[in-house]
């Protein structure tokens, strides 16, 4: 006998196999699918933001006044919220992309995918918090003024 199987491990395996039967796959409808969906949506959103960002930055070569006038229109709570959304999307896409790279290049990447998602979530909170505090703080201050 190669060590007695413990009850909790058994139970987990049974739950997992029941879920697999119900869902057909471990992937569909689970974290893996939803992070894939979010990776696509955040990627497209960031790319579309980049098109707009390059267009407004081009105004530095039109005139200093034109650039400053457009920058001034960004100083309001609505654009602040968009800026906050951009920060959250970038941090998610960056960390999720690094996790995808670990699937491909780390031998244990697939086996540890759930643990990696927890690490990713912790890092997401750590990296997103400074941006949320800095940008969100301005939005709140502007709304109160």
């Amino acid at each position: 006998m190669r060590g007695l199987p413990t009850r909790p491990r058994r139970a987990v395996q049974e739950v997992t196999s029941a879920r697999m039967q119900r869902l057909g796959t471990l992937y569909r409808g689970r974290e893996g699918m939803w992070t894939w969906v979010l990776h696509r949506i955040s990627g497209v959103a960031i790319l579309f933001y980049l098109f707009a960002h390059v267009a407004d930055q081009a105004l530095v070569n039109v005139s200093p006044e034109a650039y400053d006038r457009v920058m001034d229109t960004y100083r309001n709570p609505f654009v602040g919220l968009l800026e906050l959304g951009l920060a959250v999307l970038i941090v998610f896409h960056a960390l999720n992309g690094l996790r995808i790279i670990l699937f491909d290049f780390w031998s244990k990447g697939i086996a540890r995918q759930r643990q990696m998602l927890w690490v990713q979530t912790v890092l997401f909170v750590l990296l997103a918090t400074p941006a949320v505090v800095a940008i969100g703080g301005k939005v709140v201050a502007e709304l109160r003024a």
Partner: protein
Amino acid sequence: MSVDVPPTPLPRSTASDRRQPRMGKGNFELYAWVFMRVSGVLLVLLVLAHFAIMHVLGGGLDRVNFAFVSGRWANPFWRVYDFAMLTLALLHGGNGLRVIIDDYARTAYRRLVYLSLAATVVGLTWVLGTLTIFAFTPRG
């Protein structure tokens, strides 16, 4: 004793569902795959630092105006930095968009239209961004 009826599993994808590679495409998809990973790592560093400097530290966008841009682009380091970020981001994002269009375009004609549109916007953005960075003359 009741007999357990196993639930019907959802259909799985099979080899015939997968898109067949077209002839004469060479190793393009392999290089694109490698590029996404290499550029992805570089962009994490470039973009997070850029975002921290421009949006989070020292008051963020509050202090960004023509004089601020002038000060930064007086240093060639930031011009090269911004150009590298622009180029990698557009190639990375453009390739991502290509993969998504390949997934959802329903006909070859639509696929061609979407891909042409994406390539045009990405290309024009790269030209405009490159001109913005290198044609700029710092003042003030």
